[in-house]
């Protein structure tokens, strides 16, 4: 619950900031670069005189959008592949699992490079990269849960009654893995935010001048900023850590709620 209490205000602030914050994240002011916090600019200004607060809020919107959409995609793909593998019989299972293995063996750096150069950098490709990197883990979890389920009476029965794959997936697969899905999805949002930051560091991800928490943090790569203007990376850093922390809290709470054994007290 503490997680939600932190998360909701952050979410609200990033979504509505245009209504109450006077500055635009991409407005430059070359006469006031690298300024400290002041009553007008609460968090100061960056290397081209943009308002750090406005960029932080816009960046949060971008980062959260990237993380949520990629979470949705990877959850859907991960569940589908895992569930089909779990229910559809040996041949499909074997093929699907080898596909998952293959996806897990691909070096992320190359994957990134190729996607970035084909699709370009920006919000869309970043979402694509994060989703494609994340789904295999979920597939494995869903499959192993459903493998146990496959041999249970009610599944065998409904299959005997001629239920199609579609029916099996949604009547039996989904309800029996919903706990995995919800917890995974929550943690994946946190993971997505971190991954987006990491991608920025490697030179892909959401590229400036569009703001994201990742590329704002990335300004710490310049020793000048790291040393002389710490607030330019400290504010986004702090907000990022707090947000991820809050999401992790929520995820942990959900896990406990679904799995009463984990932490009774």
């Amino acid at each position, binding site marked *: 619950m503490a997680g939600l209490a932190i998360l909701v205000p952050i979410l609200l602030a990033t979504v509505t900031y245009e209504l109450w914050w006077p500055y635009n994240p*991409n*407005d*430059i002011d*070359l*006469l006031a*670069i690298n300024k400290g916090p002041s009553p007008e600019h609460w968090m100061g200004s*960056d*290397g*081209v*005189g*943009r308002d750090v607060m406005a960029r932080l809020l816009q960046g949060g919107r971008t980062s959260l959008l990237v993380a949520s959409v990629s979470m949705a995609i990877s959850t859907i793909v991960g569940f589908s592949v895992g569930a089909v593998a779990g229910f559809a019989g040996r041949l499909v299972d074997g093929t699907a699992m080898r596909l998952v293995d293959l996806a897990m063996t691909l070096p992320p750096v190359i994957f990134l*490079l190729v996607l*970035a*150069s084909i699709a*370009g*950098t920006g919000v869309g490709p970043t979402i694509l990269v994060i989703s494609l990197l994340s789904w295999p883990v979920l597939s494995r979890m869903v499959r192993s849960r459903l493998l146990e389920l496959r041999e249970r009476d009610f599944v065998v029965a409904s299959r005997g009654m001629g239920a199609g794959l579609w029916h099996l997936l949604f009547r039996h697969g989904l309800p029996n893995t919903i706990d995995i899905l919800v917890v995974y999805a929550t943690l994946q949002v946190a993971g997505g935010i971190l991954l987006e930051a990491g991608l920025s560091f490697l*030179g892909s991800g959401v*590229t*400036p*001048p569009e703001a994201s928490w990742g590329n704002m943090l*990335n*300004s710490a*790569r*310049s*020793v*000048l*900023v*790291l*040393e*002389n203007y710490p607030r330019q990376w400290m504010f986004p850093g702090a907000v990022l850590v707090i947000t991820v922390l809050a999401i992790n809290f929520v995820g942990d709470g959900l896990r406990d709620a679904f799995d009463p054994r984990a932490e009774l007290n």
Partner: protein
Amino acid sequence: MGALASEFEVSPDSLSYTFRLADAKWHDGEPFTSADVKFTLELAKNAESGGLFAARSADIASVETPDESTVIVTLSQPNSAFLSVLSYVMMLPEHALAEIPVAEIGKNARWSTTPIGTGPFRFVRYVSDQYVELAAFEDYREGRPKVDRLINRYFANPAAAVAALKAGEIQFSFVEPDDARTFDGDTAFRVIEGDSFVVNYVGFNHRVGIWDDVRVRRAVMHAIDRDAIITSIFGGAAKRADCGYVADQFVPEGLDPYGYDPEKAKALLAEAGWDEINGAAPISWVTYYNSPQVANLMAAMQAMLAQVGINVVPRAVDVPTYNGIVRGETYADFPMTYAGLQNGPDPASLNVGLNGSQLPPVGNNLMRVEMPELSSAFDAAMAETDSAAAAGKWQQVCRAMNEQLPWGTMWVASRYGVASSDLVDFHWTPAPGSGPYVAHPEDWDIAP
């Protein structure tokens, strides 16, 4: 090569060059002789070796060696670039390489295990991605170097290099302009500033059709407040470039300074009918510069261009991607670039980037500039052998660039190295390709 010849003379018909070789030794103790020169030049000429100088050294008709320290090179036709080509050829030891078949010399393992040369330091070892270790060469022709060892460390991350410099682990490094400022006022370090000899420009791809009207290109120049960017983002460490050159002798009087004037930019765009040409459609703006400073520069320029109604979207890619894109024919992938090209000390460096005869795949005219007046200005300047008259010809090039704006020339930034104050007699010039500009490393020393 230049350093290894003590003197040379050219025959009146410009066909025959006679070199007297300096008294030098290879790192393995063997003397450097005219046979090595003959071996090297013949290897360079031989396309089978896979070397890069085959085409450029094709004019060499014969290499004769009357004695151990004399080389006579005869050309089949006069070639004014011959000496400069020679200065790039690295001399090779015949006694060590003669046994290896010509076709395999290029990939022979000795380049990375036991290379030998004639310089002040000899190779000790190379640890991949970590460092190259060099040791003083006792028999160096100008005396033994003062330091015993020279270690060239590699850093994957510029911030790590700065960290190692500040921690005292390394004594010298190239430093990003922004990072150089963090050494200001620190007496333990000396910041060396120099001309980068690279002019940065906004490249207009002349094949995409949106930049055809010179008024549009002028509007871009008027929209960007270069002076403000130089004072703020560069902290004054750059020179405004109104053409490809900033050196006084190549810049004529009376250039259009293209002062910051958004209203004029808007008017020019309206006149040219920008709404019809492109309007507010996003224009991808490609660069291979990945430093935080350039990200800031481009953000600033993007905002300034947006004010007048040109919607550009910066896109930073790595060097191979950039080269792959701009050397290709998919012009829509790079309607606009932010790039740099070496503009000095030799002004002819810009020729490959702007002369209509240098379109890819032949040359480096990546923006596909085809402006007859500019091309003939370049041709005239290139053909001029008298150096006093040549300066005037280069001024013509500069004027043509300023009027026609094949590129939106922006600035020439300074380049920085930071050296520990412990270093004594450290001569070093920040310049592209470093190569021939490193001066007298044998004098470098570390204070006790």
